[in-house]
């Protein structure tokens, strides 16, 4: 009797409350980053309620898998992930404990945004962790290229239409509108960056290959000796030498890294400059959406390049 009573007590605790109700007219969309959230808002309009888990000023590789995220994901109709193992340290346990069948990998409500975009730095041949924390599936910072933003938006449009077919005309219209605005802005950005094609620079982490490729800039080195490995004195000295030799003056840093080493490097180089760019929407206050992300970065980068190149 007492056994059954105690089993009952233990198990009853798990069933005490009623089923959570998610009766809402809007689709609940949860995304890993604010960039994906912004694109989902562009396409979904007022038919979607979008929440991003990682903030734009946070290193997306290292996000705490907080239980409050489980609550958010529990109510999601669609989860949009960056993919390419960017979130490998935190997303799998969250999805697994979300108690939400809709957003399990392979389910209709799980979208890996990286599957239809242009990915750079996919390693070929043997890779080992002697290379640092390499991403075996290619560079996951692909959203930093407007063309990829367009491809993400297409994937989001298709996914939203699949989940909510009644609104597909709206999603298509909103996508077309986003596409038009993005294309117009791209012309401006290309024009602003055109004078600096071929300019060499240094970045902290490998966050910018898509961005720099797009605007014809050449990244010749990184403040990190290897991805995910903090700066070392010998690597820093080598980098200073290389920058001096090549006449390279600009170091681009993500807002979540310490400015100490980049600043120390810049101080060793005549005319050296450290520039903090926003790798994501929300990375700085001014950047509230995907188009503003480039607006901000292009403006700052063009200004800094003008200063260091004198063009």
């Amino acid at each position, binding site marked *: 009797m007492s056994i059954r009573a105690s089993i009952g007590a233990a198990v009853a605790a798990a069933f005490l409350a009623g089923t959570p109700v998610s009766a809402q007219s809007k689709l609940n969309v949860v995304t890993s980053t604010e960039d994906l959230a912004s694109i989902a808002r562009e396409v979904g309009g007022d038919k979607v309620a979008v929440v991003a888990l990682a903030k734009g000023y946070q290193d997306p590789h290292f*996000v705490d898998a907080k239980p*409050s995220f489980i609550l958010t994901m529990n109510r999601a109709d669609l989860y949009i992930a960056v993919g390419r*193992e960017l979130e490998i340290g935190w997303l799998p346990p969250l999805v697994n404990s979300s108690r939400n069948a809709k957003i399990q*990998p392979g389910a209709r409500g799980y979208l890996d945004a990286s599957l*239809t975009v242009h990915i750079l730095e*996919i390693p070929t*041949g043997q890779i080992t962790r002697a290379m640092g*924390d390499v991403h075996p599936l290619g560079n996951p910072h692909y959203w930093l290229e407007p063309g990829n933003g367009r491809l993400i938006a297409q994937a989001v449009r*298709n996914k939203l239409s*699949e989940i909510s077919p009644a609104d597909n005309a709206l999603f298509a219209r909103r996508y077309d509108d986003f596409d038009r605005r993005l294309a117009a802005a791209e012309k401006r950005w290309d024009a602003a960056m055109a004078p600096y094609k071929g300019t060499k620079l240094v970045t902290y982490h490998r966050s910018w290959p898509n961005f720099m490729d797009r605007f014809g800039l050449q990244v010749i080195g990184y403040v990190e000796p290897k991805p995910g490995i903090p700066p070392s004195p010998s690597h820093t000295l080598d980098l200073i030498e290389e920058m001096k030799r090549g006449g390279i003056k600009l170091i681009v840093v993500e807002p979540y890294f310490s400015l100490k080493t980049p600043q120390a490097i810049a101080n060793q180089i005549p005319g050296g400059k450290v520039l903090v760019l926003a790798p994501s929407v929300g990375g700085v206050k001014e950047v509230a959406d995907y188009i503003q992300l480039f607006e901000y970065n292009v403006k700052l980068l063009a200004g800094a390049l003008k200063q260091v190149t004198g063009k």
Partner: protein
Amino acid sequence: MQARRFSTGMCAVLIFAAALFGPVTTVSAQTADVQALRQEIEQLRKEFEAVRQQYGQRLSALEARLGGAAAPAAAAPATREAGQPATAEVPPGALAAGGPTGSLPIYATASAASKIFNPDIGMIGNFISATGESRGGSESIAPIPFATLQESEASFQAIVDPYARADFFLAIGEEGIEVEEGYVSFPTLPGGLFVKAGKFRANIGRLNAFHNHTLPWIDRPLVMYNLLGGSPLDPDTGIKDAGVSVSRLIPAGKVFLEATGEVFRGDSGTVFKSSRRSDVSTIGRLRAYADFTEEANIEIGGSYARGHNDLGSGFFTQLYGTDVALRWRPLSRAIYRSMAARTELFWSRREEIAAPQSAFGGYASLDYQVQRRWFVGGRYDWTERATNAAIRDRGSSAVLTFWPSEFTQLRSQYRRTRYGDDGRMANELLFQALFTIGAHGAHPF
């Protein structure tokens, strides 16, 4: 008899759950203009065709580049995700019948290597070294020799099918292999339930469910040895047993509230002993979590466990536990700074032949990240012994941790323990090297 009734009940629950797995057909109301819909489908189809062609070309280019070289093992699970599966068009008319549109993936391609479905495999080595002495006495709790590869953990993890995933953790010690955990879990059950079955670390308190390599110290707190049934020879102490765990979220606004109920066989270290099939042990836990700000949060838990002890079926041991954790991590500097304060308290009531023993114990700890790779911490232990509450062991530790990378960790811990039985004092300096190869595991929270 009780056992049979219990297992019949379990079967009923499982059958009920299985019934709920059944296919669900959704019939969406097709009110939209048919003509517009047709155009939309046509457009989607064209786009998809274009994407497919583009990917086909890119894929063949990639295959050509790779040549005949075998893909590295690490990239094997990757291919599944990165590669676009082959697709087939859904026949026209499916939409009207409530079926899918566009293309569906084909999974059974001739080229699919069976390797693709291998689980994620990881191996964590745990090398420990100790120096120091235990004055005036013999053994300490969990004695560590000068050097030992105390326990290496092999992990095998994969999704089983659309309904389940499986996790295996094998603890490989110097003397043999033990299944530390091995369970199947069902994350897609209806009703917001999460069910786990197999052998696993019980959800009692906060630390009990943690694996050794994810702890902020080299050893486990004394209370886990004294009250949670650790054998002094088992470094991986705590309640772990074979059984079933059911948990669900309880709606509570912005507060994360989770209730867990677990039923085990009833054998776990020195705390629970099952001498009959019906001598099961049960555990219940309620866990609440809330964000103060985006940088700081609190987690509070209450646990209860009940099982039979080594004196026989008529003797119960009950455990009551409470735990609190405060965490702080500034998001924009998340990789450089963090702080975690934890405390756990346990009360044990163990029925004995003469009179029940009521023992109490706990620990409190603080960990602070001073730099990207450096952490300092401290822990205070205070605990009575389950079988003789008059004996109180106390300990304090200071810990320094260095992370060369995400995959290695070097740690040293100074541990001072005062044993209650003979006033012995042990002063020890412990060193640990943790190293991970294979799958990139999730960071513990």
